[in-house]
């Protein structure tokens, strides 16, 4: 108790110095917390947008991940409904999963007959209701702005979506009523030469195929912009379907945005497998919590091993390397800033405590003469360092929380990494108490450690020399 009394009163003997030291710690704490909160928000934002789109885990046919992207059609999972049923009925997985849904990846050429523009596309076939459900995943409460639901007509399986970039390239801005859509500059290079290659293909057959794949509901044929999708089937034959574009969705990554076509699973299967067995390239699992990912992955591996299924599981970080890159980049920057702040705090506190030891040399001699051990003197100064750290870090936490409160309510929006649209800037602090406690504790520990050297110097003072000190 007396130790606390002396420590707490001693740190305010030189008020200006102590306040300066505490302010340094407070600013260091606040800066670390604010940048950490921003970094956490970026991490969670990327994680959320990735998991909304790709789920946590995807089941592929063994080898697809490494070799299948060139020709997804031949890597389809046969009897996928059975696999899906096995996953859905597993008690462990069912408790962890929000949804397990099939997807079909595909690639080919897209053409807009209205604008006579064409280009390659990357497509995904999905179950619209499942996709809409996946878009509600927000474990971390990031409240990211979400794209609209698919809102497809249940009776019309030819309805789909495109990336905003692809819509622009295909000249669909007006029909899709897209804002901020630049016009093609006059005199821009034309791709008619490329179109000529497509035109050289046996168009008569395509026309037949397109005619066969037009909308089920003739009423929609003129209601929505339409595009033709050309792809090779699993057997290698060319196939074409016609897609009614309901709307355009930003895809986050520019390259994907300029090439993305999303369609309903039956249409994708029809394009890829034609009249053959309809398969899927993947089964996506979205979990309630990201931390359950390894448990779910282990369980899937057990199921596949026990049933001798030639399947593999990949997580969203593997499927989206950008996530890991951003996490590593921001993690590195955060660590660098944290180390710099730690060093500044270390030297500031060490300097303040060193001056305190010099000023209180006589007092140290007196307390030692009264019977306080060297360890008691050491404890005294370490406690003072810890108290400076405690007060500074606590003020820093309050400053950071206040900053987060105001920033989160200021309505600032920006385009974060891996997002194509602006989102409200939020400092993810109120939902991360553990992070706050960690930073707070670390700064206190750093301040305490900073006092170690002066404390040792104080403890080693000779009593008579200390008493003689003026």
């Amino acid at each position: 108790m007396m130790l606390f009394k002396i420590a707490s009163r001693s740190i305010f003997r030189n008020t200006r110095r102590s306040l300066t030291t505490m302010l340094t710690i407070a600013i260091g704490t606040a800066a670390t917390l604010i940048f950490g909160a921003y970094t956490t928000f970026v991490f969670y934002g990327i994680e959320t947008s990735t998991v909304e789109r790709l789920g946590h885990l995807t089941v592929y046919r063994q080898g697809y991940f490494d070799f299948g992207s060139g020709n997804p059609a031949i890597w389809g999972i046969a009897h996928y409904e059975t696999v899906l049923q096995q996953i859905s009925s597993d008690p462990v997985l069912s408790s962890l999963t929000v949804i397990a849904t099939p997807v079909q990846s595909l690639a080919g050429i897209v053409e807009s007959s209205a604008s006579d523009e064409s280009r390659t596309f990357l497509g995904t076939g999905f179950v619209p209701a499942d996709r809409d459900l996946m878009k509600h995943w927000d474990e971390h409460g990031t409240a990211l702005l979400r794209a609209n639901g698919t809102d497809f007509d249940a009776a019309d399986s030819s309805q789909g979506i495109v990336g905003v970039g692809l819509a622009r390239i295909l000249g669909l801005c007006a029909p899709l009523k897209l804002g901020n859509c630049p016009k093609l500059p006059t005199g821009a290079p034309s791709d008619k030469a490329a179109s000529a290659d497509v035109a050289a293909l046996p168009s008569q057959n395509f026309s037949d195929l397109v005619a066969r794949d037009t909308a089920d509901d003739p009423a929609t044929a003129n209601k929505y912009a339409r595009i033709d999708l050309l792809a090779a089937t699993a057997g290698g034959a060319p196939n074409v379907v016609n897609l009614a574009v309901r709307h355009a969705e930003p895809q986050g990554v520019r390259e994907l945005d300029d090439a993305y076509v999303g369609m309903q699973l039956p249409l994708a299967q029809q394009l890829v497998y034609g009249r053959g067995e309809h398969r899927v390239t993947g089964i996506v699992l979205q979990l309630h919590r990201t931390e359950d990912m390894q448990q779910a992955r282990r369980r899937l591996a057990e199921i596949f091993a026990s049933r001798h299924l030639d399947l593999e599981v990949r997580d969203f970080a593997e499927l989206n390397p950008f996530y890991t890159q951003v996490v590593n980049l921001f993690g590195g920057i955060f660590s660098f800033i944290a180390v710099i702040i730690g060093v500044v705090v270390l030297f500031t506190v060490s300097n303040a405590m060193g001056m305190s030891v010099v000023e209180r040399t006589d007092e140290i001699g007196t307390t030692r003469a009264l019977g306080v051990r060297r360890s008691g003197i050491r404890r005294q100064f370490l406690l003072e360092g810890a108290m400076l750290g405690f007060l500074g870090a606590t003020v820093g936490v309050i400053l950071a929380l206040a900053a987060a409160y105001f920033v989160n309510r200021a309505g600032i929006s920006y385009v974060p990494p891996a997002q194509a649209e602006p989102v409200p800037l939020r400092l993810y602090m109120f939902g991360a108490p553990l992070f706050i406690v960690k930073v707070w504790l670390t700064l206190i520990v750093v301040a305490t450690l900073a006092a170690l050297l002066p404390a040792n110097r104080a403890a080693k003072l000779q009593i008579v020399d200390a008493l003689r000190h003026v």
Partner: protein
Amino acid sequence: MSNHVVTLTNVTKTYQVGAEKVRAVRGITLSIPAQRFTMIVGPSGSGKTTLLNLIGCIDAPSSGEVEISGRNVGHLSDSEVSDFRAAKVGFIFQSFSLIPVLSAYENVEYPLLLTGVGARERRRTALAMLEAVGLTAQRHQRPNELSGGQKQRVAIARALVKRPAIVLADEPTANLDSQTGASIIALMRRMQTESSTTFIFASHDDHLISHADEIFTVRDGELIESANA
């Protein structure tokens, strides 16, 4: 068994001042009986304070042996010597050496904390000691709010409060008026009787010297005279 509370045997203390070695105490051998008023006298720079420091175990001899209450302190570790000081020795420094961030009461209470006295007993004893030195009204004041004489009395109360075996005092009455000085000497006398405390003073105060039971005279670091008063 000897009733000497302090025994110094051929004690020498040499300080290194720059390139020069200063011999502050030169081969002093003396014994101080328990429960006495012992005075160490001598001119400035004669080695009185160094002798008190050696007896109080806040300094170690360059050679020779120091035995306090039957224990050769040269054989104790630093922590053991600290505990020994906390339990057995009280200091009254010439410059008071009060802890500036503590009130008068807290300064007096501090030595009791170091010896593990319980809170209630601590409070009772500290208040009684402050009353004995006439500072009850000033108990909440910090040293910078006290006069020189009041500081001296707090320092005396702090040294006496734990009823140590030995009290070492460097000019304890230097800042006190004659009436207060007399009352302090009376208090010390009472403790000498009640608590078997041995008082060892370094002083020039004739009034204090007149109360001495034993006087050691030092000059140039050597003991030149030992006399019973």
